[in-house]
């Protein structure tokens, strides 16, 4: 792995961690949703700094050019994040639907109560 790629990768993973941390500090993302980002950044950081590990990993996978293994892992992390986000969105959609239904039901109940009040 050339020094330039190593440097770029280092900047990238540190930068990601820094941005995510900043977003938490500003309360723009919640801690529980940041974990997967930090996890990914740390994995990339370790493989960037610990060159031997990356080489071993690449050999194990049968990848001749070690930085390619790094990209593969980065892509995998990206996929994991998207999947995680899809799960979160699905849950929110379901909760959102239930809330809308409850609001409709409550509004109706409230209207009945108000009508009863007026007629008394």
């Amino acid at each position: 792995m050339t020094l330039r790629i190593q440097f770029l990768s280092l900047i990238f993973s540190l930068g990601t961690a820094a941005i995510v941390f900043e977003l938490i500090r500003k309360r723009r993302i919640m801690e529980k949703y940041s974990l997967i980002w930090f996890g990914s950044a740390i994995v990339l950081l370790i493989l960037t700094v610990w060159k031997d590990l990356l080489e071993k990993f690449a050999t194990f996978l049968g990848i001749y050019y070690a930085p390619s293994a790094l990209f593969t892992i980065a892509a995998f992390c990206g996929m994991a994040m998207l999947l995680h986000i899809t799960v979160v969105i699905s849950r929110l959609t379901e909760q959102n639907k239930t809330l809308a239904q409850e609001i409709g039901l409550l509004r109706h109940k409230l209207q009945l109560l108000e009508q009863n009040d007026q007629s008394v």
Partner: protein
Amino acid sequence: MHKNDKLLVIMPAYNEANNIASVITELKSTELPLDILVVDDGSTDATAEVVSCLDVHLIRLPFNLGIGGAVQTGFRFAVQNGYDIAIQLDSDGQHIPQEIPKLLKPILRERVDMCIGSRYLQQTEYQTPLSRRIGMIFFSIINSLLVGQRITDNTSGFRAFNRRTIEFLAENYPIDYPEPETIVMLGRNGFHIQECAVNMRKRKSGESSITTLLSFYYMFKVLLSITAALFKTFRKTGALSL
């Protein structure tokens, strides 16, 4: 019919200001002992205003949820207010209120959990647009295989449900294009389904929710949902579903 059975007609409505009043009038003229609930699914026209003058229950959803979300609201209302039987009826005038007793009969007399009003069980006056016929045959084959009983009209939204089914569907109901999926959900979870032949009209005005362009997406989406419904775990409700 049990004297004390409480009946609810659930009418999901999205931008049906032009049709809904005449459907409700027709429904009331049947003089069946039923309550009417309109679920206004975030309409942008005067649907809610029209309905609020008609002395029926009206639930207004704060935004558009899609047909499934609207119908499920009706099931929740039925559960909360102790209804024994729910009838789902379109607001566009396609379903004929006079046909409701046909749907009720199997539920009241034959311990059926859901009764579907079918256009294809017998030769009726209803003419299906060609574009939809292929999809219907497709679902008919798939669902019949999965449920182990012949279902001729999988997309019909003219249905009646007993209390046990209402409780199950109040917890588990698909959001969009719910009809075919519901059959699989119920059929695979031990609910008794039956069809009965009914007449339907052509739509009076407005667009069908399924355009030709969307029909491929529709078929793919429903196929996926049906497949998933085979393996999903559903929320069981209370002791009644045991």
